[in-house]
């Protein structure tokens, strides 16, 4: 081939065109970097806001009380019927003997959480010999005290607008100087369920609910999704019926999740009679939602296995099923797992369908199994975000942190699994 004058490799036109090509490449690269930068900036902004507003929830203000468990507080045989509230009050009055009058007393009592009485009750039930003894104990402070300590209450406001009155403020200071007020690690947040009192509210119920729900979802959707994908991809005849199924699966993946919630309400709860608000029904609904995602991902990864591998296996006389299970599936597995984890992560963050099946209920007890009423993490976030108390704001952020932690954990597992099952070529 004879290069013509204008396309000669060293002609000015050629060099110019070359430069233009490099410029186009350069500007495309810059655009890409810009896009990544903007995305990262948003992410950093989001994460830092959540962390900033949420980390304080992991600490909580505690008050040290000197309690005396006099026998007179336990008139009944049943120790649970003891007047624990009275014990706490007596301890407070002994610290501030000058307090008198109903209003004043109530203000004083409002410094300590209702949880103090529950804590005493738990201790006495665990060890009845405590009755008749005196000891010191750290109990959670009321949420308003906690907010004050965390700097969320502006004492310059007029007294009527504040949740902490002047007298209370004085007493809090007294307690603080006396070493009876302390910020401690908030164990309650990790060990208890929801509560009307922010200082007693915890994430465990929702976390366990989410965990049980996801277990059901995984156990149902992974085998079903993979089996469906294998059948459709490897065994199903190529006809209008399978085409129809394929189109419908793709459509299902795009159905708004709340519809699945309604479907679950109608079928699982009303028709099958599965108890509402339970991880079982939640898992079933999320399975419906996750299945299409898993099927599509699994089919894509089956499709990406080169046909030469199938031919090789068939060529040595492997049957269809041996070909699929010995050769195709191991190569497709990493992709399937990734798709499954993405589906599970979606399910973990899903709120709307759970609202439909009653997992939005206020649940204090920590679920012990698949058929106990439970909340789920995103629903818990929704509930707390909706609560008027100032102290729930930080709980909301803290719950989001926990949810993100779950997600990161799941993604880490996905990466690990992919690495582990990946077959090198």
């Amino acid at each position: 081939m004879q290069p013509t004058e204008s396309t000669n490799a060293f002609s000015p036109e050629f060099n110019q065109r070359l430069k233009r090509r490099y410029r186009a490449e350069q500007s495309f690269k810059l655009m890409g970097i810009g896009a990544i930068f903007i995305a990262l900036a948003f992410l950093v902004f989001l994460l830092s806001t959540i962390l900033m507003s949420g980390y304080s929830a992991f600490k909580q203000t505690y008050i040290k009380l000197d309690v005396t468990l006099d026998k007179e507080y336990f008139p009944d045989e049943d120790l649970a019927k003891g007047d624990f509230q009275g014990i706490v009050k007596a301890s407070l009055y002994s610290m501030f003997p000058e307090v008198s009058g109903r209003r004043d007393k109530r203000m004083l009592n409002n410094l300590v959480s209702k949880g103090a009485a529950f804590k005493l009750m738990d201790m006495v039930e665990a060890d009845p010999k405590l009755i008749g003894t005196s000891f010191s104990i750290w109990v959670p402070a009321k949420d308003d005290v906690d907010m004050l300590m965390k700097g969320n209450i502006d004492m310059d406001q007029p007294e009527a607008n504040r949740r902490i009155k002047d007298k209370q403020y004085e007493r809090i200071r007294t307690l603080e100087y006396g070493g009876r007020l302390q910020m401690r690690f908030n164990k309650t947040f990790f060990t208890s369920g929801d509560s009307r009192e922010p200082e007693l509210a915890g994430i465990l119920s929702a976390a366990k609910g989410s965990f049980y729900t996801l277990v059901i979802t995984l156990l149902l959707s992974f085998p079903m999704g993979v089996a469906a994908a294998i059948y459709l991809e490897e065994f199903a005849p190529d006809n209008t019926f399978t085409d129809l199924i394929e189109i419908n699966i793709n459509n299902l993946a795009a159905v708004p999740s709340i519809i699945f919630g309604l479907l679950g309400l109608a079928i699982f709860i009303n028709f099958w009679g599965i108890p509402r608000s339970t991880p079982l029904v939640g898992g079933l609904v999320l399975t419906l939602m996750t299945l299409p995602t898993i099927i599509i991902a699994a089919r894509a990864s089956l499709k990406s296995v080169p046909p030469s591998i199938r031919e090789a296996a068939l060529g040595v006389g492997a049957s269809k099923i041996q070909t699929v299970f010995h050769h195709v599936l191991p190569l497709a597995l990493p992709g399937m797992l990734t798709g499954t984890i993405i589906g599970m992560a979606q399910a973990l963050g899903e709120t709307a369908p759970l609202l439909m099946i009653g997992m939005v209920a206020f649940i204090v007890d920590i679920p012990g199994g698949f058929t106990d009423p439970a909340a789920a993490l995103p629903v818990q976030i929704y509930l707390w975000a909706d609560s008027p108390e100032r102290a729930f704001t930080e709980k909301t952020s803290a719950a989001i942190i926990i949810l993100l932690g779950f997600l990161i954990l799941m993604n880490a597992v996905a990466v690990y699994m992919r690495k582990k099952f990946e077959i090198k070529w």
Partner: protein
Amino acid sequence: METVADTIHPAIPIAEARETEHDNVIQTDVTGTVGNPFVDTPRMTCRDVYVYYGDTCAIKNASIDVACNEVLAMIGPSGCGKSTFLRCLNRMNDTVPGCRVEGQITLDTTDIYHPSVDVVPLRARVGMVFQKPNPFPKSIYDNIAYGPKIHGLTASKGELDEVVETSLIKAGLWDEVKDRLAEPGTGLSGGQQQRLCIARAIAVSPEVILMDEPCSALDPIATAKIEELIAELRTQFSIVIVTHAMQQAARVSQRTAYFHLGNLVEVGDTDQIFTNPRHRLTEDYITGRFG
């Protein structure tokens, strides 16, 4: 339905192929193929085979035998149906949607397209080596052991080891890989991979081995090794090889079949085909007027 072949070459029906300068009589037997497609003691026989992809006819009325202990080469221009015909012999075409085979193909007198025939043992008896080396992404050992394992050919681990070793020796690969049997087969060079695939095919002791352009991705040295190997394997197996390199066909095969646009034009002894073709199309191809 009229096919491409019919419309392009209506003027050259096989029976009318012109006489060459040589004094050979043009053979025009019932199958419409010139030469000697049949042998006395065939391993496989094909009679009146038609292959369709949907409505298109890719092979028309092919009849040919595969003898025991011979290498049969198939040559012809690209797209003439060599691979299609080869894949009929172990029913690999079953996996192609819309592909239909008519006529009769037998292996040791059993009709392999009979409904009662199971393709799994059939493919163990008629092995295949593909154009692109396609070892399993498993260890070298497992690549070879897979066939014997699924067919239950060996009773013990020791026996399996032996099969793996003899297959690799036969494929001329043993010395190169004996210390790295646990390494992945995909880590070998192209030529080694192809020999691994041949070893994998012979590990199930087939009767016939089909090879579809086994050397097309290899350099001359690797090609020479595989050709040597084919010559050795002939003592035990029947081999049907598709090739684009005519010299290769001339070197390794005893008989050669020439395909043209879906027709089996001529079959004969390799020497005769390359020195004295009887059909004009064969002659044109061999002398390089096509392709």
